[in-house]
């Protein structure tokens, strides 16, 4: 592992141990929790979060933020659901491609506004978040697309399993691996870290930080689009408000996973851990008999703890003067 990431990978390691410890603690109280079947369920349940968080990580690493992912997911999901209703003969592969395309276009819209008009990412995506939700309503006239209006193949794809894991889990695993390789070994991946870490210096190295942000938004959008199909097929329903507020969980998973909100820092491993952590909490709490509302509380605590930890890791020396 590259030493430049050593502080980050140390953090990932500590957090990995913590996650395993959490898993162990739950399993001691509820041995059934640690059964392969249940763990597979947890991963299955967390896969969409992982896919979205990986996209979000790219956006945050390049100093952006994407509040519109959940709305993008819902809109792309609605588009493919409507398509499937009207043309049930379309195969799953074209459906996924259309979902990715739709998400990618919506992401590109965010990216263009941030790159070309230099608008602040949080404002742009807050705006498009509402716009995308609004478009769902316009497309669907507020109506639902229900299970009986979806083709069997459309619904079945997400339920196939292989070695105990469903399509969802395999997709998350494959995308995480691809993401790891791309971020470590592709020029564009390294350029994202450079652009997010020091945009001025990046410019002097011939990297356009705005262009890197654009690429990050397109990838994040395309992943959100694919997740739109996965979500609609998994829950067998599409309507205006699906995944409402889910973007906050996605961002939370990134922050818990060690992505620096100031940009330039974040790892695939950390983000996947962050998602699994949220997934374990979400699945374990009902078992332990604690209300699901505590989940938000615990996630919040973990975010604060994570931020506190990385703040303490920074050199304390002359922090007053060097804080920019």
């Amino acid at each position, binding site marked *: 592992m590259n030493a*430049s990431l050593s502080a980050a990978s140390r953090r990932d390691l500590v957090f990995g141990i913590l996650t395993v410890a959490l898993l162990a603690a739950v399993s001691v109280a509820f041995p059934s929790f640690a059964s392969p079947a249940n763990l597979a369920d947890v991963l299955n349940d967390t896969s969409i979060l992982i896919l979205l968080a990986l996209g979000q990580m790219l956006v945050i690493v390049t100093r952006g933020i994407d509040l519109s992912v959940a709305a993008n997911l819902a809109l792309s999901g609605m588009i493919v659901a409507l398509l499937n209703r009207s043309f049930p003969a379309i195969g799953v592969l074209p459906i996924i491609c259309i979902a990715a395309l739709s998400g990618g276009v919506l992401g590109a819209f965010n990216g263009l506004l941030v790159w070309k008009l230099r608008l602040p990412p949080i404002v742009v995506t807050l705006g498009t978040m509402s716009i995308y939700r609004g478009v769902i309503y316009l497309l669907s006239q507020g109506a639902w697309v229900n299970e009986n209006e979806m083709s069997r193949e459309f619904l079945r794809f997400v339920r196939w399993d292989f070695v105990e894991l469903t399509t969802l889990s395999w997709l998350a695993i494959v995308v995480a691996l691809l993401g790891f390789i791309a971020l*470590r070994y592709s020029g564009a991946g390294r350029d994202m870290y450079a652009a997010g870490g020091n945009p*001025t*210096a990046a410019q002097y190295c011939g990297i356009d930080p705005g262009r890197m942000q654009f690429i990050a938004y397109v990838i994040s959008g395309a992943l959100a689009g694919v997740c739109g199909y996965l979500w609609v097929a998994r829950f067998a329903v599409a309507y205006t408000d699906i995944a409402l507020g889910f973007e906050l969980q996605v961002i939370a998973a990134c922050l818990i996973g060690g992505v620096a909100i100031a940009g330039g*820092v974040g790892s695939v491993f950390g983000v996947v851990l962050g998602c699994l952590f949220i997934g374990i909490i979400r699945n374990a709490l009902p078992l332990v008999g604690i209300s699901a509302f505590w989940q938000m509380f615990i996630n919040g605590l973990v975010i604060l703890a994570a931020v506190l930890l990385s703040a303490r890791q920074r050199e304390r020396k002359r922090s007053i003067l060097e804080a920019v």
Partner: protein
Amino acid sequence: MPFLTLSHIQKSFGGTRALTDANLSLHAGQVTALIGENGAGKSTLVKILSGVHQPDAGEIQLEGQAVRIDHPEHARELGISVVHQESVVFDNLSVAENMFVGDRPRERGWVSWRTMRQRAAEVLKQLDATFDPDAPAGSLSIAQKHVIQIARGLTRRARVLIMDEPTASLAHREVEELFGLTRKLSAAGCSVLFISHKFEEVFDIANRYSVFRDGASVGEGELAASSRDELIRLMVGRPVEQLFPKTPPELGEPLMRVEHLSRTGEFQDISFDVRRGEILGIYGLVGAGRTELAQVLFGLESADSGSIEVCGRRVAVKSVQEAVREGIAYVPEDRQTQGAILPFSIASNLALPNLTALAPRGWWSAQRETQLADEWVETLKVKTANTATVVQDLSGGNQQKVVIAKWLARKPKILILDEPTKGIDVGAKRAVHAVMDQFVHRGCAVIMISSDLPEILGMSDRILVMRRGRVRALFTREEATSEAVIRAATDA
């Protein structure tokens, strides 16, 4: 024939004309010094040469061929490499990756970390750099970060190397090392453009000079046939009769006495005093612990042991508020991030340490603020249309005047200045020195930390030399020579 020629380059930003008629020629195997006051257009020229900006008019010729430098990557392809003034280093990336950003070694399209690390290690070895290519750049000192930038240039077989004030934050020994390297590169046929405010360095390293004033070239030639006075005259457009406006001091009783002050890992057993009417210079290399000492005196950090007395009374400066109450003021080294609030107006910046005075019954008065600002802009001759001007829009020298003025307005007894004239032009430097001289003649004291040897020798009544966190020597003005001070400051 010159390797690179710029003729009649013009460049405006909005209504501001940064370059009106810039001419420059760089010869292979020669070091050309680019000299000019701040605002003379040097930085703009560098940005044009490095492909960040395009000229509005004029021509750039490389080996006799007209070229357009479209973007930074293009400049690099042409063999133009830049060591930038501000540290353009990626703290989040490793040393090795920093050297190859924009041009990473690839294998079948994928980044080859092995090759990158190997080549980085080779270049670092060439530079006698001792740090690990795998270390995160954020863990390095400013001087080491500069070395990374130079190393970046070396990874690309640069034909033109532009060094934009590379020595501003370097200590003496590091400057020597940098110059050794520059000579090596130039001997290998590289054209070097060296930009600096320090004449000693210019005469030390360069063969040729080119002087800029107000965006235009006003003279160029062989340095051997020129003199420092002539260059200064070209720069400011008027002769400078005396470099340091220092008048004989009227010393009084000690204002501040520091005894056996220590802070683990930064400095040990520091003792000295400063008297009324005195300018105490503190000289040392980067890392000698000077800034750290100043920060303890100003309450930004606390000492582990030792004592500080102000006016014969022992004080515990545990916070900046207490230090200010004791009449201590501190003008930090980096005015851009530590000294001034750039997007604030001159008046608002001046008001910051003086809010109690400006808000007599708890309510701030805009009228008093403007009054105060007008008074100090007048006293320090800050060049500005009015006090509502945003500090960002001022030149470096005028920014520094504002930072000093905001503290002077509080009427401190002891003024600590950390590199007070770093990166500001000759005229502003002189003005800052004059302010210091007037200040101590009112019975106050100045502690001046500086790496600028002529400034230390020219302005100080006594010179304290630090090395590796300890006091190594204390010279009176009469005893001090540049050789003696440097000897005390270096490990030799």
